[in-house]
């Protein structure tokens, strides 16, 4: 699905990613954990194509294609989805209108005709149920006046509508109460197939009780310093990040 090799990225003069190596295969869920400032959000932004960052070294292939050469919209059309940590409010652009535009542009990219209005509405109805999103919200402007939990559910709703191959959930659990967390996690679990993959970026272990990862990676100071299975997340939760910091500052020092 995605192969990240020796990825380095900077913002201005400051190098944030210092050589990331990661391979995610179809059907897998990978969790990336790490303390604040370790580069988790930078990694998701770089993969989605945010222009604030400069990739200085390394390569990323997505289903055999060079991801870093693609525009943000083409990455999405190829099947990459980023659930934002802080979803943007866009007054005046209706959720539905925007999603219809997105779906049709993705379809056009793959040489398919625009979706029929009735098929689109049926799809909206089905996916709304999946994330228990109020029908009123889908007709409103994108995220405008949504609560924190509603914004995150809207991200998962959009993901469900677009059916990406690879979804990156960037701290989707932040700001969620336990009920919203369960809804979001259920949505992800129901969307999981043998043909798609997820990268779940999180600071805490609790989301991983609901979305069980196949692999857990610890990102620290711009590098993946340790990889393992779901037990690694529990170990991290028990010991805290301080031990990791201590351990790797020592080895680097």
């Amino acid at each position, binding site marked *: 699905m995605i192969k990240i090799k020796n990825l380095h990225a900077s913002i201005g003069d400051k190098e944030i990613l210092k050589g990331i190596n990661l391979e995610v295969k179809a059907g897998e869920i990978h969790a990336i954990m790490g303390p604040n400032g370790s580069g988790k959000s930078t990694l998701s932004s770089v993969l*989605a194509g945010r222009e604030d960052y400069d990739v200085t070294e390394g390569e990323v292939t997505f289903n055999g294609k060079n991801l870093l050469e693609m*525009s943000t*919209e083409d990455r999405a059309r190829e099947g990459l989805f980023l659930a934002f940590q802080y*979803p943007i409010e866009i007054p*005046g652009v209706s959720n539905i209108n*925007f999603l219809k*535009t*997105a779906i049709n542009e993705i379809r056009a990219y793959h040489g398919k005709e625009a979706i029929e209005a009735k098929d689109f509405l049926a799809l909206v109805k089905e996916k709304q149920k999946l994330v228990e999103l109020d029908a009123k919200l889908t007709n409103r402007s994108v995220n405008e006046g949504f609560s924190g939990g509603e914004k995150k559910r809207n991200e998962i709703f959009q993901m469900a509508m677009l059916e990406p191959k690879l979804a990156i959930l960037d701290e989707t659990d932040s700001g969620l109460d336990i009920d919203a967390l369960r809804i979001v996690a259920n949505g992800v679990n129901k969307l999981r197939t043998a043909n798609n993959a997820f990268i779940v970026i999180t600071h805490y272990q609790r989301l991983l009780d609901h979305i069980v990862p196949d692999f857990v990676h610890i990102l620290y100071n711009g590098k993946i310093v340790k990889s393992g299975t779901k037990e690694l997340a529990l170990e991290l939760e028990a010991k805290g990040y301080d031990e990791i910091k201590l351990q790797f500052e020592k080895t680097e020092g």
Partner: protein
Amino acid sequence: MIAERSITTQKIIEAISAKANKVGFVIDAELTEALQFLENNGIPTNKHEDYKYCNLDAVFKKEFKNITQDFNEITNSDVKPYKLNEAINLVVANGNYMESLSDKIIVKGITIKCLNDLSGNNTPIGSLAASKSDAFIALSNAFSGNGLYIEVQKNNVIPMPINIIYINSVNAESLINPRSFIRIQPSAEVTITERFVSIGKKVFSNFLSEKLVEENAKLTSYTIQEEGKESFAVHTNQVKVSRNATYDHTTITLSGQLVRNNHNVVIAGENSRSDLNGLFLTDGSQLVDNHTLMDHQVPNCESNELYKGVVGGKSIGVFNGKIFVRKDAQKTNAYQSSKNILLSDDATLNTKPQLEIYANDVKCSHGTSTGKIDENALFYLKARGVGDESARKLLLAAFANEVLDKIQIESLRMHLETELNKLY
């Protein structure tokens, strides 16, 4: 300087006088005053405080140096694209009301006449438009075409909108002075669209409308400016709002090399409400200059203004909004907002709120914002697969819709959406 100015004015006066009939509906004293004012003051240059960004004297010198007043006849097929199915369509062609091109629908409670039918000493025409207040009002008082008079009689709520098409077609550089007088009698209601189009060669259109909204009456009106790339226009609206009345106006500017809007509202009756909304999209070397005045003369009134601009290329947008709260106008609520998006580094937006408040118990506020298209919103849309162009269009449409939503005539709204979509 004075001598140079009067050369421009002299030339215009000579050119127009040669072709124009004497205006019958402006009283002789006003006509003398109009010519005198033009003689003394000329067409304003950018030295004039109110025309700082809009040097119209220079425009006449450069663009209308061969002014000849050569008009084409307007036919039914010229007008047809601008008619609205659900409305009563009236046509003012090259400044003159043309009954033959207008709909022949008789609706109870409306009087429609040409301005010349209101000649005589008791004419209301000009009562809201003193020559001494502005050169373009003076120009209209002196040389107006035989425009349109609409009166909605007491207690009549007109069920369909009125669509006035002001169409100009000239064969060579010409100045046209279309004019209207709209009177809404007590407790009457109507929606009126004034639509400006031009075909043919370069034209300067100096439009003047007087609007009288009497007690408890409601006038919803729209100005739609789509005169084309080559046209120049000054549009003046002189409005008087009476007790318990509502005036709700929206101006949409789609095209025009230079468009100057002077919208002056005299709030003369208590408990009235006046709203002015505007949307303009500019590109190339266009200049769109909106000047508004809300003159609160009496207590307990509300006024609202929302002007939005999308300014691209090397174009210039201007919003100058003056709120004048007189000593007696206690309990005034006056709000003003100007929001703008600059699409290029060479585009310019000048915005100037002017509040002059002489009463002590009022609520007045103004806000202005000018920025680029929101990059975070753009990235969010693209991250969902929406292409750059579509994403920009979605965001600009969202920005414009706040004003466009004021347009309540369905077919007009759809036309505007289509035209705006080409400009985003």
